[in-house]
């Protein structure tokens, strides 16, 4: 019985990791589309969105089945609970890439406002965070998860920097406002994706150590990240 359960758990973990790899590819394709200024490159992301929805349903269904059949406790219980949470985070990440495609469609109607410098950096760090959080999940390593959480400040800083820079464009030329706004929203989407990677990392810490590190300020500890700007 235990062996069967272990096999089922491993299969479920693998499926979640495949889902995460799909999400990462969606971010990569989205970023590529932006850099190439070519909406046609967004097509694979659209296809993947359907795959992600299916992943989410299948993984949740299998998790519920395993809970019902095996009445897990301790590490098994924490793993299964976190699988459903991480599953939802990944689905949100996919939604954000779809949002970026939507903003790009409007933005691409005009010429580029500026060369994209900070955005690819944000995208790179964000993908690294997502990969890192899933590596932490796969290796059940809370130190790796904490390293991901520490990366979030960088993304927040780049987001703030992008916002300030774009405001100078808008002040200089009010006609640039639409394109600037789309870029602000795109940067904001990357920043949200990074936040979901942080959530996954926090879930991994709970899974490994049974310690809930979300909203640490509630426990009187130091707040985890910077306050939202």
């Amino acid at each position: 019985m235990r062996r069967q359960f272990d096999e089922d758990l491993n299969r479920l973990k693998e499926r979640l990791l495949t889902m995460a790899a799909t999400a990462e590819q969606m971010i990569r394709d989205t970023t590529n589309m932006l850099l190439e200024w070519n909406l046609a490159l967004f097509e694979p992301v659209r296809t993947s969105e359907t795959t992600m929805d299916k992943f989410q349903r299948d993984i949740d269904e299998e998790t519920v089945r395993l809970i019902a059949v095996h009445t897990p406790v301790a590490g098994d219980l924490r793993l299964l609970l976190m699988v459903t949470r991480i599953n939802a985070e990944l689905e949100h990440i996919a939604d954000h890439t779809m949002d970026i495609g939507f903003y790009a469609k409007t933005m691409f109607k005009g010429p580029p406002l500026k060369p994209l410098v900070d955005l690819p950096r944000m995208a790179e760090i964000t993908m690294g965070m997502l990969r890192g959080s899933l590596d932490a999940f796969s290796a059940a390593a809370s130190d790796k998860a904490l390293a991901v959480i520490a990366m979030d400040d960088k993304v927040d800083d780049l987001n703030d920097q992008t916002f300030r820079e774009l405001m100078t464009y808008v002040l200089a030329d009010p006609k640039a406002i639409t394109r600037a706004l789309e870029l602000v929203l795109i940067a904001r989407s990357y920043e949200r994706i990074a936040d979901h990677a942080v959530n996954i990392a926090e879930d991994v810490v709970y899974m490994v150590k049974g310690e809930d590190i979300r909203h640490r300020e509630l426990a009187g500890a130091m707040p985890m990240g910077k306050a939202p700007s």
Partner: protein
Amino acid sequence: MNTNQELDSVGIETNDLSLWYGAFQALFGVSSRIASGRITALIGPSGCGKTTLLRCFNRMNERFANVRVQGDVRIRGRNIYDPDVSLIELRKAIGMVFQRPNPLPLSVYDNVAFGLRIHSPAGGAIRSQEEEAVEKALREVFLFEDIKDHLDRKGTDLLLEQQQKLCIARLLPLKPTVLLLDEPCSSLDAEGTEAVENLLTSLRGKYTLVIVTHNMAQARRISDECMFMLNGRLVEHADTAALFVTPKDKRTEEYIEGRYG
């Protein structure tokens, strides 16, 4: 020195308790504080020492030859292994229930009155007081309504589940503070188990209950705290919910996840 408040909150305390059956050491330096008025489950694989530990709480192990005990067991601050402790008084205060119900081959009424009679001074209790105590005990174990018209039936003729309830009922007139239960549901079917579990839950708060169980689901359902034992050692003692979600010790985790034993 314990304060009174601590004495009230600790039902049973063991300090560095070790026990040997001849040359075989069954308990290794067990130190624990079992909360008063709560249900504490002793869990662990077969032969881990949980029944031995339970039997230390009423000095039941002394019935076996070659048993040697070191360390102490304190109940309300008093070491029950002190030489001047009366075994009769001790076992009045600490009731025990076993795997198989073991009512006496007497009527239901006499089963419950038995303890009262042998522990009463010569002459015994007045009949009306005795009847009152018997009814109260049978009510407390939810048995009175079912068998009030058959109190003269032999205890051994009842359903197994009723017999087990009767075995708990017969302890109550002696006003124990601690009830020790050694796998009290292992000979019962699902329905009987549920009935006894409901009974134990209703006794929470009135008595300190310590239950040995092999059934993890039962430990999760009814206990407030769990003590996990392995190879004669107490590995982990925590609130049940915490122990089953976030055990601190790898060995506890492996055992409750079914990876051990």
